[in-house]
């Protein structure tokens, strides 16, 4: 994956002084039409997600500078935890089927580059292929992603390890705060529309075309913000020849050591912005009912159990291997990129610290010898010894 | 007052239609309470047509999950009725039921579901009048509360 300089193409670049996002949101609302709802990262909770955000009460850009990314990814706004596929009424002879209505348009404000990039990964899978996931497409078209360049990577962040960066250009509009000013970039036709609307506003403090030189510096600065784990998670080698190394990774002895710890809960997959597995079930009520799609997880024991009772992935080993190889090898084999944006959520969510970095390290060892492991820090005194490093059982 | 209280309040204020009658699911043990209900019938005691009896062998057969499911599907009230303590046809079933539902009802209350929607009563085979009375009281109490909106799934 080529390095990300954040300046591909020649999009509209606006700038305006002050850090209020209100004008931008208003512009987006004008473009998206009435009833559009705005969602933004919430604050003041131990576990944070996106939450409704009243237009008029839109926080200033600086607000996000104080927060790390949400613990729960915004994936649910395009791929809801539960959604109707259809509803039916009546039976033989008088069967009536109704499709669910699409719901109001939405603006995801302050989404991080990694999460916006995650949606681009989902696009390739869900609407890029021969089969188009209609409910996802419908939502996608009615949603605007206003990306906020990341100024405060979380402690588990490693987007740069996966070919992205805190300043990565993704979503429809990308906002880069710089001192007292905002650089606003269009990153899609929808984005262009919105910036058009924003520009039309004009007026004092209104947006004006940005000075390219300055813009370049701002973007470059954002893109070079380091992440805590970016350098420790060594995955790039896995992209070189995914087909070639698949066998070795699959057969790796490391799984025996890594898998037993797993609780087979779906936490990692449910907080992950790129996991898209789902289940479809019917919920009949007498003569009528709904067919619902809900999240599902490859980590669940019965995820693959078939009608006859056979389960191709009966053990933790098979399931853990599936998840990580899907992210790090199977997806690269088909799409040439990782199914991971390094947002670090699975790392924080996993109750037993099964770390993608730990896994990557073990896998890297399968394709290239590693330096000798650092001996572990002794002593309960170090109830934990921070960056003491892996060390191997073998 | 919090938002979640609103629907219940509103319901209490103006039941959506004149006709609205609570729907009560009653789990009655075959040996006492179901017989009591039959006796109410043979004695021609009248009570509101709000109750639908599910016949079970013993109150000890009633899984608290049945109660939640009834609320989930839109019941406005649930009654579990069994033999008086000491009179269980199977000698101990209602004692287990008593423990279970003591906890379950308190847990429901704790979760914000109005406990007045869930009743447990001991009604013997000879207490036809009591059965009728319980249904009358319960219908009145729940009519006052209005339709169950909290635990019920939207249609």
């Amino acid at each position, binding site marked *: 994956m080529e390095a990300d300089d954040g300046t591909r193409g020649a999009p509209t670049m606006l700038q305006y002084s002050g850090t209020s996002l209100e004008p931008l949101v208003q512009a987006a609302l004008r473009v998206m039409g009435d009833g559009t709802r705005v969602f933004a990262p919430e604050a003041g909770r131990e576990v944070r997600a996106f939450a409704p955000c009243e237009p008029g009460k839109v926080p200033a850009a600086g607000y996000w500078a104080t927060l790390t990314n949400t613990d729960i990814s915004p994936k649910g706004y395009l791929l809801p935890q539960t959604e109707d596929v259809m509803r039916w009424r009546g039976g033989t002879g008088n069967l009536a089927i109704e499709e669910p209505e699409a719901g109001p348009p939405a603006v995801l404000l302050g989404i991080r580059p990694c999460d916006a990039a995650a949606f681009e990964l989902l696009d390739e899978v869900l609407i890029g292929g021969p089969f188009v996931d209609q409910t996802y497409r419908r939502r996608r078209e009615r949603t605007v992603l206003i990306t906020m360049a990341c100024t405060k990577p979380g402690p588990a962040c490693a987007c740069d390890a996966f070919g992205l960066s805190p300043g990565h250009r993704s979503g429809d509009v990308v906002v880069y705060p710089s001192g007292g000013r905002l650089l606003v970039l269009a990153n899609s036709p929808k984005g262009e529309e919105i910036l058009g609307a924003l520009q039309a506003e004009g007026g004092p403090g209104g947006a004006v075309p940005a000075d390219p030189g300055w813009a370049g510096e701002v973007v470059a600065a954002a893109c070079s913000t380091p992440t805590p784990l970016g350098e420790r998670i060594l995955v790039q080698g896995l992209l070189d020849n995914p087909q070639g190394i698949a066998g070795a990774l699959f057969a790796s002895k490391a799984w025996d050591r890594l898998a037993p710890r797993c609780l087979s809960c779906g936490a990692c997959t449910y907080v992950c912005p790129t996991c898209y597995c789902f289940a479809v079930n019917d919920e009949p009520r007498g*003569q009528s009912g709904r067919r619902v799609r809900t999240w599902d997880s490859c980590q669940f024991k019965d995820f693959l159990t078939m009608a006859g009772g056979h389960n191709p992935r009966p053990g933790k080993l098979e399931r853990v291997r599936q998840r990580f190889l899907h992210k790090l090898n199977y997806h690269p084999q088909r799409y040439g990129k990782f199914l991971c944006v390094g947002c670090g959520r699975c790392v924080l969510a996993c109750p037993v610290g099964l770390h993608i970095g730990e896994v990557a390290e073990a896998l890297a060892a399968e394709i290239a010898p590693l330096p000798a492991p650092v001996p572990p820090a002794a002593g309960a005194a170090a109830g934990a010894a921070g960056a003491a490093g892996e060390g191997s059982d073998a | 007052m919090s938002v979640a209280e609103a629907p219940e309040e509103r319901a209490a204020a103006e039941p959506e239609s004149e006709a609205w009658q609570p729907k009560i699911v009653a789990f009655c043990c075959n040996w006492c309470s179901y017989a009591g209900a039959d006796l109410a019938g043979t004695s021609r005691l009248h009570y*509101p047509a709000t109750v*639908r009896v599910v016949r079970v*062998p013993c109150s000890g057969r009633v899984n608290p999950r049945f109660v939640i499911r009834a609320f989930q599907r839109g019941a406005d009230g649930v009654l579990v009725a069994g033999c008086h303590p000491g009179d269980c046809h199977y000698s101990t079933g209602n004692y287990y039921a008593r423990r279970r539902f003591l906890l379950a009802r308190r847990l429901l209350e704790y979760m914000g579901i109005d406990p007045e929607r869930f009743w447990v009563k001991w009604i013997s085979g000879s207490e036809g009048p009591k059965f009728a009375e319980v249904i009358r009281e319960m219908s009145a109490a729940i009519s006052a509360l209005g339709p169950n909106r909290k635990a019920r799934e939207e249609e």
Partner: protein
Amino acid sequence: MPRVGVFICWCGSNIAGTVDIARVVEAVAEMPQVVHVEDNKYTCSEPGQASIRKAVSDHRLDRVVVAACSPRMHENTFRKTIAAAGLNPYLLEVANLREQCSWVHEDKEAATVKAIDLVRMAVAKVCRHVPLFTSQSPVTKRAVVIGGGIAGIQAALDIADAGHEVVLVERTPSLGGHMAQLDKTFPTLDCSACILTPKMVEVAQHPKITIYAYSEVEKVDGYVGNFTVTIRRKARSVDETRCTGCGVCMTRCPSNVPNEFDVGLGKRKAIYVPFPQAVPNKATIDREHCIYYQRGRCRICERVCEAKAIVFDQPDELIEVQAGAIVAATGYAQFDHSVYGEYGYGQYPDVITGLEFERLVCASGPTEGKIKRPSDGRIPETVVFIKCVGSRDENKGVSYCSRTCCMYTAKHAILTREKIPGSRVYIFYMDVRTAGKGYEEFYRRATEEYGARYVRGRVSRIYPKGGRLVVVGEDTILGRKAVVEADMVVLAAAMVPQPDAGAIARTLGVSYDQDGFLTEAHPKLRPVETNTAGVFLAGACQGPKDIPDTVAQASAAASKAAALLCREALKTEAMIASVDESRCSGCLWCEAVCPYKAITAKTITERVRGKNVSRTVAEVNKSLCHGCGACTVACRDGAMNLLGFTNQQILAEVEAVCL
């Protein structure tokens, strides 16, 4: 897709008067699984049933709903009907449109709507019905009766007379129990031995009865109809087949042991027959007191025994008996009054219990029937009787009334006055309870004819004074202190359970109440059954009883047992619990809540990922399960289900109501 037929009954105008049948028919016809619906004036009538049978074949129905009166009324009728039509009888569901709808509602609209709901529920449930079957388990035609007192004797005789084999187990060397220790019996004053010993002999001679005396039940396995009872025959050190009961050994035995038959008032030898009329009349060596066993020398009995019956190295013997029914007649014990300081902590020799008094007045007793003071053998002139000693006293004794004391105290009063001319008799009492045929009259005789003086009040203190006992009490009727100088005081001590009643209960797998008496299945309706099918109760092991009640209950228990043994096989219930072994975790919480001990652990072996793995699951004994369903709720796994009332069926009904 099930093919349900629905038959809606008018019950004349009983249902049709309040429920708009036509509308119900219309609504039911709409229900997806219903392929046929019809209404009849009287579905239970022969024409009504005929049309069900016809519809079943005409419309190839595989399930039937009858919407009529309460299932408690006609469920069985209609089961037979559809069985006659070739369906499994359990593929029926009854909607109660009469008792629980038309008869209790006036508003026709509401009743009709409810009727439709009730039918919808029944249809939803019946669609989840599956054929159910009863099975058979054989019956071993033999009863084991535990306890050789009057209760056990009566039960054994009745069962044997009904033509079934009986094994009678008695822990002491002889049958007879407490009744054998009594002198006369109220209210007729006929001698206890005279009416008891013939029965003992009858038992001994009955071709169908086997007696194991000096034996105890050690273990009970199996279930109703198929018990295996393990009996320990304790070593008598005497060969029963040889011993003639001549008694020479006893005359020569040098030891001296307090005689428990005389409640310690008399002495016996280490080799002994408890009392002259003992059955079996065989000697027993009490190894604890036998000089040879204690010191290794003596063996006099062996030398004098012409029958050569003495076997010093005789071992205990364990035998297994197959039985279909068990009768527990393990009797009672007497309350130990030494907890009462006011009565002298059992320290005063002349303060005795009613049972001791029985031995004193009994002609075969230690005093040949002369009432003498244990202390100095003097004939008492003044005797004080105190009732409710231990009974009705939650603090030091038991809460219940022992039921016999009022009567036997009256009897003792009469006997004292008869045997000791000029004697004075005082009776301290709380109440006089004489509920029984001829009881009140008997009590009146004691007071009026025999001049027993009843003092209503408790005794606060007894203390010795110059060889006599001063009884200080209160006369609550005259409201003054009552002080009597007595020569002897007789305490009517409470009847309490056998000290090992708990162990007996556990062996039999029955429950016992807070006092320790074995509990009946239902206090009113199943007074001699227990919750363990096939185990019955007789006599004082279930609660204090006098002889008439004991005998009556013994016969009742016997008839229940005989009725059971008469059957070739036991038909099991069809609606019982069943385990989904694939879900069962084997935690067996179900076992804990099962009132019938119907659930046991079972090990199964299955192939998991190419390996044979064994694990424990619950198993339901079809013969014991009564179908209460307690286990289904205790089962978190949802592995336990109740046929006929499955989780699926109940949930289906709930959902049907709420549509």
